[in-house]
Each structure stands twice: as structure tokens, then as C-alpha cells.
């Protein structure tokens, strides 16, 4: 296991080979290796280019709608009777989730590199919608790979992508979910290396993607720092975010890694339970392995064959996790827990009824942990939850699961 000196910043990773401790790297086929090295060079150059930063900032403000509000959830706080709960409202950003932050950053890089053809994988469809959106905005061809299972359960997002001019390609291999879509996107990339830019949607994949996606998402945590200081004149006590690949969590956590008094809590999807095979909790239920270009924690069998993940939320349905999370877990800087499908649905309903906000089922996993944790905490404990996306896309799933108990009218509904 990697050692780290606690007097050193935890925000310096990865190393030159793309490792966060033992995790990360560039485990890709030779065909892709020169591209990845090229991408790394271009990204390093773009980071130092004030014009790149200016354009990203301008579009983030006027096109995406940043800053996203930091909202004090008064009735949720009152209901739970403990910690003061703030919601970071990424659900209010253009396209309805944090995914746009990264898609925008990467498409600016694609344009800088002269690439005109954009590909992406998507699970819940939010990254696909964000990518299709920026591709339309910059006039680029856009191809989205999406598992056939996910296409079925996230129909509204499929239609949004198509409306935006993207071609959505169903992936039937494997279980037809996010990992299979990522395999297919990698196959496309290796076939069209000269023209194509692959916008990976999460903090995983070969170096430099985990660091690059994190950097584009870190605007979330940077804003929280400033906003909470304005409201409460201090740092938060805890940050809570859901984790599939882990991009919204890493974006929230990263600016706070060197503040040891800020507790970082990542919530994986426990699906039908960690004691069943049907979950998506790579850290709680997996072990170290190599997939999709990086070494990280993976759900796999004793033979190293990758297991199919399960979660009610398509966006968390991935058998891996970003390598920086695997490292933060290994050095115990962040705490990782899990919430089940049922707990997420209960949290989903609670936020609808208490705050008038319909959260994404992904973000509902973070809220489920808040429900467990907040009542036992003092009233001066400041807890910030990343409300990473809105729940409109989940109406079919939620209505199916909750119709009976909530007395919902499904006669004309999307079911």
C-alpha cells in the first residue's frame, strides 16, 4: 500500500504515471497510448492557458448557470432534528446535473485539439445529455453509447440526446449497462483515433481522465467553500455525496482534502443489499483490479471476471470507482458507506415532500446517508450534500416503485 506523509498536501495527485498511491495508471491498448499521452500534454497546456480558463468560466456562468446555489434545507433539517443541512444545487444547472461541468471542459479541449467527432458513454443518461448538449453548442458530431437496459429505464434522456442531434447507440453486450457502454466507447475510440475525442463522464479511465474530470468538477467544492463561508463564516463539518464512478463526490471533496476537520462521506449504491450479489458498492464489496484503463476497486469474482453491478439508479450502476476514491479509501481520508435501493427511494420521497425538490435517484443515495447520520449530530454541525442531479429522468422508475405506497395516479403516467 502506498504511504503518504500527513504533512504533505493530499491534493497533488496523481504522480507522473497517473497513480494515486497504488491506484490509477494507464492500462490501455497500445493504439490508444499515443492519444492518451497527447491528451495529457494538451490538457497540461490548456490548464496553463488563461484564455482557456476565461472561456470555461464565461460559459460556465452564462451557459451552464453557475454558481449553483448552496441552499439551506430548513424543513429537512427540522425534520431530522440534528445537523444543519445544506444542499449544493447542481440539479439546477443546465441539463439538470453536475455532468455538464466536465462535458463543457472536455469539449473545449477537443476543439483545441482539432477533434470534430465526440463520443461518450452514459449510464443514467445525464452525461450523455450533457455531452450531446455541448456537442450541439460547438457544432460537433456526437455519438453516445448506452446500455440497452439503461435505454429502457431512462427513456426521457434518450429522447433528449436524440433531440440534441446525438446518435444514441444501444449496447447489448454484457448486462447492457454502463460498463458495457464504456467498453463499446473504447472500441469506437480505438477505431477512430484520428478524428475522435472521447469525453469520459466520470473520474475513472486511463490517466489523465481521473485528474482532468476531477479538475473540471472541482468548481463544485470551490463554490461550496466560498458560499458556506459567506453564510456560516466557516468550513463545513461534513460533506456527503453519492458515488458511481465518483465525479460529483470528487468535485465536492477535492478542494477540502487538506482540511482534516472536514469529514468526507461517499455513498455507494447497496442495491438490494451488500449481502446479496445485487449491488454496486465497489469499495464495500469489491477488491483491487484493472479495468477501463485504471487500477481501482472492482466488483469481480475470484477469477478476476468483472461482476455486473446493480442499482435502482442507472448512474451508480458501475462495478468500479474512480482511482482517487480508492486511494482516499485506502489512506482513510474519506469514509465510504452504502445506501440500498429502498433507502434511496425513501430519501427521494422525503426530499420531494419536505423541500419541494425532486432529486435524482443517484443523489437520493447521498440523502439516504444524511437521513441516517444527521439526527445524531449536534445542531451546529454543518453538513453539505451534493444534490448532483434532478429526478425528472427517474419518474418512470420512481412511479413504478412508489405508486402503491404513495397513492400515485399511474393511469395516465409514464408507466
Amino acid at each position, binding site marked *: 500500500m502506498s504511504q503518504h506523509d500527513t504533512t504533505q498536501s493530499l491534493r497533488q495527485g496523481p504522480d507522473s504515471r497517473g497513480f494515486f498511491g497504488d491506484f490509477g495508471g494507464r*492500462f490501455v491498448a497500445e*493504439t490508444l497510448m499515443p492519444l492518451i499521452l497527447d491528451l495529457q500534454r494538451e490538457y497540461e497546456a490548456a490548464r496553463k492557458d488563461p484564455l482557456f480558463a476565461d472561456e470555461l468560466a464565461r460559459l460556465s456562468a452564462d451557459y451552464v448557470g453557475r454558481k449553483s446555489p448552496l441552499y439551506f434545507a430548513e424543513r429537512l433539517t427540522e425534520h431530522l432534528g440534528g445537523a444543519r443541512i445544506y444542499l449544493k444545487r447542481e440539479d439546477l444547472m443546465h441539463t439538470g446535473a453536475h455532468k455538464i461541468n466536465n462535458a463543457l471542459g472536455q469539449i473545449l479541449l477537443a476543439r483545441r485539439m482539432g477533434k470534430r467527432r465526440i463520443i461518450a458513454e452514459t449510464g443514467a443518461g445525464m452525461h450523455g445529455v450533457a455531452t450531446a448538449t455541448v456537442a450541439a453548442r460547438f457544432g460537433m458530431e456526437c455519438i453516445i453509447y448506452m446500455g440497452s437496459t439503461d435505454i429502457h429505464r431512462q427513456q426521457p434522456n434518450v429522447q433528449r440526446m436524440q433531440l440534441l442531434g446525438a446518435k444514441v447507440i444501444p449496447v447489448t453486450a454484457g448486462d447492457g449497462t454502463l460498463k458495457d457502454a464504456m467498453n463499446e466507447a*473504447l472500441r469506437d475510440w480505438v*477505431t477512430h483515433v484520428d478524428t475522435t475525442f472521447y469525453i469520459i463522464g466520470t473520474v475513472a479511465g486511463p490517466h489523465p481522465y481521473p485528474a482532468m474530470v476531477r479538475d473540471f468538477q472541482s468548481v463544485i467544492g470551490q463554490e461550496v467553500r466560498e458560499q458556506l463561508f459567506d453564510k456560516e463564516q466557516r468550513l463545513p463539518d461534513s460533506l456527503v455525496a453519492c458515488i458511481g464512478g465518483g465525479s460529483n463526490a470528487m468535485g465536492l471533496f477535492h478542494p477540502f482534502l487538506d482540511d482534516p476537520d472536514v469529514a468526507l462521506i461517499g455513498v455507494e449504491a447497496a442495491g438490494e443489499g451488500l449481502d446479496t450479489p445485487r449491488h454496486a458498492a465497489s469499495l464495500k464489496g469489491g477488491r483491487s483490479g484493472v479495468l477501463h484503463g485504471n487500477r481501482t476497486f472492482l466488483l469481480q469474482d475470484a*477469477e478476476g471476471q*468483472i461482476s455486473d453491478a446493480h442499482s435502482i439508479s442507472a448512474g451508480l450502476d458501475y462495478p468500479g470507482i474512480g482511482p482517487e476514491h480508492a486511494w482516499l479509501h485506502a489512506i482513510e481520508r474519506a469514509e465510504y458507506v452504502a445506501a440500498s435501493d429502498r433507502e434511496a427511494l425513501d430519501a427521494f420521497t422525503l426530499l420531494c415532500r419536505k423541500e419541494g425538490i425532486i432529486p435524482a435517484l443517484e443523489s437520493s443515495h447521498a440523502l439516504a446517508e444524511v437521513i441516517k447520520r444527521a439526527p445524531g449530530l449536534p445542531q451546529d454541525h454543518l453538513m453539505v450534500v451534493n444534490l448532483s442531479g434532478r429526478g425528472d429522468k427517474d419518474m418512470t422508475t420512481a412511479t413504478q416503485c412508489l405508486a402503491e405506497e404513495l397513492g400515485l395516479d399511474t393511469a395516465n403516467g409514464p408507466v
Partner: protein
Amino acid sequence: MTSPATSQGRLAQRFAATRQQGRAALVTYIAAGDPDYATSLATLKGLGEAGADVIELGMPFTDPMADGPAIQHATRRALEGGQTMDRTLEMVRELRRVDTLTPVVLMGYYNPIYARGVERFLDQAKAAGVDGLIVVDLPPEHDDELCLPAAKAGLNFIRLATPTTDAERLPSVLANTSGFLYYVSSNGVTGGAAPSAERVKQELDRIRAHSDIPVAVGFGIRTAAQAKEIGAFADGVVVGSALIDAQASGETPQAGTQAVLELTRELANALAQAGHAPSR
């Protein structure tokens, strides 16, 4: 980095022999356990006699990111049929009872090896009679993971070079490779479009300016005619997806095996006729 054991191993001997015979070596790929253990073993045992000079035996993996549909389906059939790494190694041991000469290269992805433990895997592979490894998702940047330990254990580590491997990278790609170099004829996944022989020849000339390691060309070569064209200048020709399709084409598993061996004979004859104009 090549140890005495690997420089005198079956791969080196086989390529020396085919060079001496003035022809390209036929490198055949089959997926271990496709469609089931017994059928796959029967195919494996027949390949050498049918004219395969080198056998690549695919280690099935759930997420074959560099493979096209034919090999994706084959490795999935194998996994569904209960293929494991133990059984793949058992196949090599079984082969070695009847064929001690044909080099066997295990091909696949890193995670099943990593899960087993690199040292344990290398010991078991060596003991089973494996000669080399091709692991798609381990570029030279990760040589410390498996390539260097494999060389130490006396196994060849065969690297892939691709059209995107530029002059700057070529030395690092060649540095620790041994046995042969696998030139991927076109950007893409296995089983894709046929390569342009003229362009591949130029690429091979470029590689040969740096090294005299045997170069086998693969990806998209399906027919005897294509093999003959590439075999006229390459040290080896790799055929995979077409053999996988042949295995799947039979009405019975036995008929599939016969189809694989028939195609292997055709390919071998084509290479024997092609002859070889050594470009050195």
C-alpha cells in the same frame, strides 16, 4: 532483457525455422473453452498438425475492450461454459502431452492474471508449457507489472505495435518485447477491416530498421489470399476472428473443429506458396 531461456525457447526456434524455410509463420488464435472445454481442446490439439506454427490461446475475460464481436461472443460462450484460468492452463498441459513443439502464447487482458497473482500465474503458466504472453492492456509504461516478471520467469512477452506507435514510442515498445512483435495492421478492434498490404509493408520496414525481432501481422486477416499477400513480407500472419467464426459455423461442435482445421490447412498452404522475400 531476453533471458537465455526465452531466446532459445519454442518461439525463437519456430521463427528461425520458418525463416529458414523462406516463409511466414502461421499464427492462429482460438478462445480457450469456446464453445466448451472438450471441443476447444480437440481444436487446440489439431492445430499444429493442420499447419499452425504458433498458437495463441485466448484467456476469456468479461470485458474484452480491444476485441470485435466474433471474439467477444467466443469468450462469452467460453465463460458461460465454465472456462476458468485453471482450465485454460489445463488445456496447455493436455496439448503438451501430444505436441511439445508448437509454441503456445496466452492472449488476453490483465485483470484475470492480476486477480490470480502475477508470480503464481507465471509459475503455473511456465509449468503448463506456455511460451509467451500477449496482454492487450499493458503498454510499456506498465512493464513492471507483468512484462519484466515474465521475462525473469522465462516467458516471452509479446508486445503489440500499432499504426499509432510513432517513431518516438517505437523503441520503448520494442525494448522488452521478446519472441515476436505483433503488428496490429489497422486501428480498431479484432476482426475489423482488411489491412492495406502496401501500408503494412512500409510499417514493417520502419520497425525492421530498429530491430530484427520477427514481426507477425494481425487484425482483419481472414482468407488464404489475404494471408498470402501479407505473408510475402511479414515473418508471421495472425488469423483469429475467421477461425472463431469457423468454430461457430459447424452444425455440431465436431464440425466446428473440422472447419477450423480446414481453414488452418488452407492458410498454411497459402503461406507455403507465398514464399518469403526476406527484407533484411
